[in-house]
């Protein structure tokens, strides 16, 4: 298994990433069209499998890209790996700080927002990683 993963280059990562993003967000736009054409009551039968299939494809695509980029960085340039690891460290710490802060704020002031905490944290983690990578890159330039 380790050798298979080592030799497999995870091709077409960029295209799969774009396709996964489209699969993730497409139902939101298609929903309006489906409701408009068949009505709100009958739309459930169409939208449920549509959401299931598209989110499953997006999920598989994102997992493929995550593993692909992970192996690409691991086998690539060592400075880039160090920048990646330090950025991950910054992203993880930031997310953890925001997790506790948001739990406190949402529990006390907006309990319904707790439903969205994972989405908010995911966005925070991505932003922290990108900003962290820029900050770390400057250190080594």
């Amino acid at each position, binding site marked *: 298994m380790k050798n298979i993963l080592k030799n497999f280059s995870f091709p077409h990562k960029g295209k799969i990433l774009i396709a996964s993003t489209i699969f993730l967000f497409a139902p939101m736009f298609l929903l309006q069209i489906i409701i408009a054409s068949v009505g709100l009551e009958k739309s459930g039968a169409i939208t449920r499998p549509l959401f299931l299939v598209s989110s499953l494809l997006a999920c598989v695509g994102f997992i493929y890209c995550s593993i692909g980029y992970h192996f690409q960085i691991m086998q690539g*340039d*060592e*400075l*880039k790996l*160090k920048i990646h690891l330090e950025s991950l460290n910054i992203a993880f710490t930031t997310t953890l700080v925001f997790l506790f802060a948001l739990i406190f704020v949402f529990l006390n002031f907006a309990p319904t927002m707790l439903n969205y905490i994972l989405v908010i944290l995911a966005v925070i983690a991505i932003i922290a990683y990108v900003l962290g990578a820029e900050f770390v890159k400057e*250190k*080594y*330039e």
Partner: protein
Amino acid sequence: MKNTLHILRAERRLSQDDLAKLVDVSRQTINAIEREKYDPSLPLALKMGKVFNKKVEEIFFLEKEK
């Protein structure tokens, strides 16, 4: 950690890009090492030793040792 990489490279008339290709890293990595912003891994230091036909401690050394 200090190093004599830029001197050795100049002696052999190698560009940062040439050296990067020889040791299988990016030019940015060579630049960061030369500017002493980044310490290379042991395998990379050994590869550089092999390229310049020198011991690792002749290329890389602690500041006090010089």
